[in-house]
């Protein structure tokens, strides 16, 4: 067997696959074979590298060269230049946006410098479909370690680590395990909540796609701790790649005796099954999730009883989110002292965020708790796209709130975000710039909530619909001051009375935007203007006579013939005919059309 001299790691996450990374792999393999290099250079499909903005990513090991936006057509050059001749393909290297210098190693990139990767430790490093690669990186060593302890000792380590649930609510994980372990029953269940549903969030998907074995291992550890022999992963059916990789991981773990009866020669039996969800956001709520797994309507029930007392099929069940589980093996391998040294006083460890919106470096990041929003947005995220002005950042998904300039230096942790009127949530982070209308943003999130409410309790079922309608009214320029009072009261009542976490947090986008961007609401309601120019009904297009050359291009393209004027004479828009389609604005070559 020839010695392997080089590895080409190619991102096989859903995002990069959509950009043809699969074909890129085929091309690389073909080129290697053509050059008789296929014995000594191996192409490995990994999970997500996180830097989705620059995907597909190819990383060359051992020299750590980090190629970005690699197309299948680039395969030939990479093989001929880099692999054969040892010359880096400069044009595929990351360019520092400030210095314009090419950066070869990812550890010198702003995007990666501030990151600390615990949950994502293996994503982008190993082939997720090969358990041996996981084992090489100390995989399943934590399980072996735990099996030599008593469950109480192991739970104590989780408690001392200070790990809190990464699904959003931040309940202490060790305490949750302890409660489940103390409830006596003939059968208990470990449930992994992989029903990631926030718009734009893909933390859990990336972990499952990039490092499925870490979840399998953590669930087995949890099973040992609470006394469960069965694990269930509730995963949305829209995650086919994650499902496939989990199936592969579970199958391989069984073959290796890491799942099934008498794991690692102990008396501990544990196995895992997958349960598919149809993609309802509310099924991320643990009681709704359990009902859905039982084949019932996916809607929450009042707690108590908590799942730890009566969960799946009425048996004690411990439900944890994917990211929470991903931290578990690392805690046992490196010790709770190490884990709890990272983060803030009440929020330990790291948090994975899906950075999205008007930001230069869209992608998946993992930072220590306590990192400020400014560091995340401007250092890791590379600032706002197009040099525009930062306006707000929405954290916590649809149930979170919008934070502003004044919060940029707030260290991110569970409690600070709640105090600021938002929440950690599962880790969605959407950045907005000066072009975003905050009333429309609130409306967007309400639209999502209205779609995803299960309809069980009246405040969420009807209240959110009415809030959405009121926001629509305001965006149409028909809002009144009474409507603002109505929104305010409704938001507070829904928060106070809704049955589950979805409803109780659903008014957050409205409350936070009303608090931090009240003048923008007033502009819509009183002045009938949308300062960001996003609300179509409140927009008017006018022609600046000083700039108009009378070229007639706008008039020719206007679908309603609202624009009139003679050649070489400034044109005029008849506001009564204008349907605000924006065609004239796009067509004008002289910047003479203005939005007011």
């Amino acid at each position, binding site marked *: 067997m020839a010695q392997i001299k080089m590895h080409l790691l190619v991102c096989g996450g859903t995002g990069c696959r959509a950009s043809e990374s699969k074909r890129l792999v085929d091309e690389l393999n073909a080129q290697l074979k053509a050059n008789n290099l296929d014995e000594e250079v191996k192409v490995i499909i990994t999970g997500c590298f996180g830097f989705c903005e620059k995907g597909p990513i190819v990383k060359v090991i051992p020299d750590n060269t980090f190629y970005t936006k690699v197309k299948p057509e680039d395969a030939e050059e990479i093989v001929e230049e880099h692999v054969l001749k040892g010359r880096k393909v400069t044009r595929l290297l990351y360019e520092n946006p400030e210095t314009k210098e090419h950066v070869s190693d990812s550890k010198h990139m702003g995007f990666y410098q501030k990151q600390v990767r615990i949950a994502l430790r293996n994503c982008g490093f190993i082939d997720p479909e090969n358990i041996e690669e996981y084992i090489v990186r100390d995989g399943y060593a934590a399980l072996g370690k735990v099996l030599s302890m008593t469950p109480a000792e192991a739970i104590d380590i989780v408690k001392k680590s200070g790990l809190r649930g990464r699904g959003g609510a931040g309940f202490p994980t060790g305490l949750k395990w302890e409660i489940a372990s103390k409830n006596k029953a003939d059968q208990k269940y470990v449930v992994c909540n992989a029903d990631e549903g926030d718009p734009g969030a893909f933390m859990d998907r990336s972990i499952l796609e990039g490092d499925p074995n870490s979840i399998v291992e953590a669930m087995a550890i949890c099973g040992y701790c609470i006394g469960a022999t069965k694990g269930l992963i509730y995963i949305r059916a829209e995650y086919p790649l994650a499902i496939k990789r989990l199936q592969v991981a579970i199958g391989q773990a069984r073959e290796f005796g890491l799942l099934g009866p008498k794991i690692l020669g102990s008396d501990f039996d544990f196995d895992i099954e997958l349960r598919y969800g149809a993609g*309802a956001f509310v099924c991320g709520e643990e009681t709704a999730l359990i009902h859905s797994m039982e084949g019932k*309507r996916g*809607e929450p*029930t*009042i707690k*108590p009883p908590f799942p730890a007392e009566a969960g799946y099929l009425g048996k004690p069940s411990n439900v944890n989110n994917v990211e929470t589980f991903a931290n578990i093996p690392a805690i046992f391998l490196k010790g709770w002292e190490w884990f709890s040294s990272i983060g803030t006083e009440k929020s330990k460890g790291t948090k994975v965020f899906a950075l999205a919106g008007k930001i230069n470096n869209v992608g998946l990041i993992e930072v220590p708790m306590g990192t400020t929003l400014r560091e995340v947005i401007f250092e890791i995220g590379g600032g706002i796209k197009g040099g525009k002005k930062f306006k707000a950042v929405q954290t916590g998904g649809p149930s979170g709130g919008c934070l502003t300039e004044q919060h940029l230096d707030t260290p991110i942790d569970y409690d600070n975000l709640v105090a600021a009127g938002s929440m950690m949530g599962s880790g969605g982070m959407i950045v907005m710039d000066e072009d975003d209308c905050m009333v429309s943003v609130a409306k967007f999130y309400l639209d999502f909530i*209205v*779609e*995803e*409410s*299960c*309809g*069980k*309790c*009246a*405040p969420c*079922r*009807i*209240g*959110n*619909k*009415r809030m959405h*309608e*009121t926001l629509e*009214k305001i965006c149409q320029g*028909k809002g009144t001051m*009474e*409507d603002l009072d*109505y929104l305010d*009261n*409704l938001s507070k*009542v829904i*928060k*106070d*009375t*809704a*049955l589950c976490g979805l409803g*109780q947090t659903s008014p957050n986008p409205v409350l936070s935007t009303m608090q931090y961007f009240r003048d923008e609401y007033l502009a819509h309601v009183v002045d009938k203007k949308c300062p960001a120019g996003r609300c179509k009904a409140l927009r008017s297009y006018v022609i600046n006579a000083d700039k108009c050359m009378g070229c007639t291009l706008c008039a020719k393209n206007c679908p309603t013939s609202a624009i009139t004027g003679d050649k070489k004479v400034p044109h005029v828009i008849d506001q009564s005919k204008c349907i605000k389609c924006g065609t004239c604005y796009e067509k004008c070559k002289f910047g003479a059309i203005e939005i007011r």
Partner: protein
Amino acid sequence: MELIKLTIDNTPVEVEKGTTIYQAAKKIGIKIPALCYMNLEHLGIENRPGGCRICVVEVAGRRNLAPSCSTSVMEGMVVKTNTPKVLNARKTVMELILSDHPKDCLICPSNGKCELQSLAATLGVREIHSVENAAMSTYRKDASPSLKRDMDKCIMCRRCETMCNEVQTVGALSAVNRGFMAVVAPAFEQDLVKSPCTFCGQCVAVCPTGALTEVDDTNKIIRALADPSKTVVVQTAPAVRAALGEEFGLEPGTRVTGKMAAALRRLGFAKVFDTDFAADLTIMEEGTELLDRISKFLKGDKSVKLPILTSCCPAWVNFFETNYPDMLDVPSSAKSPQQMFGAIAKTYFAGKMNVKREDLVVVSVMPCLAKKFECQRDEFKVNGNPDVDYSISTRELAHLIKMANIDFASLPEEDFDQPLGESTGAAVIFGTTGGVIEAAVRTAYEIFTGNKLNKIDFKELRGLEGIRTASIDFNGTMINIGIAHQLGNARKLLDGVRSGMYNFHAIEIMACPGGCVGGAGQPYHHGDSSIIEARHKALYKEDEEKTIRKSHENPYIIKLYEEFLGKPMSETAHHLLHTHYFDKHKV
């Protein structure tokens, strides 16, 4: 028993651990308004989805408001049920519910009986913030022979779902759709007639709004009574007399048998008869069938089907036709009293009166909505003419009386007409769970043993527990009896028979909680099960006061057999008074 101390509205209270705030408050006279919550304590039926959020209260130290119906008390808890925050939340949620509810209260079938309406009044909702083009959740309307569904009026309290699925185990109704369009409906929002619905109507009995109501047949009665070519006679079921008074403000359990007869006469019915007469007739037929099967069994005939199951309850008949199609030869073939009455009225009585079948209109007043379905079954028609033309509920009768300007309270007590109005105490107790089998035992005992009963009351067969069993000594032969009310209990009992857990000779089954006294056509109980209990007691009282208390001693029954039927199970009796069942298995 662990006791918990807390204060509610500054009043200290001590309750058992596990009690909810709502119950604890009730104990000290604080009635927290609630909408979806319903607790039929005497019958072990509870609906507690925690969905309406009307019953919220403030609990010191808690971030949000607590639903009192489903929050257990804790030591030292400080609860406030009427702070400005609570009142505002309650009223705002009510406004939201009303914002998605039709405002046609004046012409709604539930006008004046609607819990949503009265709660809106209590909470003092005076206006609903209007949002331009505010959406309303609207749905296709659906009508079956018994029930109507107008789900625009559904408030998602889920009471109907609890009754249909948990109590009755029928499984016709469940929540469908999501969010704003969520509603309770048969699977795929199909029509009720295509679902496994038994028309027991318990969904209607608990619906707090006008979403689920009975099919209103009162106008058909008014037209028939006004038609000079028709002779219109009426029969009234036993449970009606114990509940009708409630519609006129009388205490639950007040018996209004005489006033009811007087009212019916004033409405213009040519003859005011009693379904109780047909109940006695049912005992003659069903009792004979029971004795016949038992005798054969005791002689060693292994082919005989035991236990015999009663067949008076039309919802139960629909239930076993749908769920136990393999057991269609097990229930008694005797028709229900309503249908026996119709068959006798349109033959024996029509002959006596010299009225043509098609000119005789038989109306029944029933505590039941499934009876509307039953009287429309094809096997109960002769050349398309039904034995019972129209079946109306207790509520519909009350409405007719009010429409006809009759002052119920000042009516005299009158008797039923003869020959189909005479009845025994045994027939009266048909209206409550355990009554049919007790009536059957009274007659079967005397016929089987040839001895007179020393003690007419069989208290071991009475009560409101969902499943009851008893063994009756028939002079050395022990007859094992099972009783179930609510279809879920019937299912348990039947499954127990199938598995060999039970060994019964006879089983009585009634679909509704408490039997017919808790029927879906009765005045609304609004979640107060003591009303059903009061009616239940009233019927035993009526039985006690009757001079004749055994069906086979009813002189008009004896006369009917002498003049017309011959003997029980005779060919004429078989033709007129017995039926057969159909496989209606769905899905």
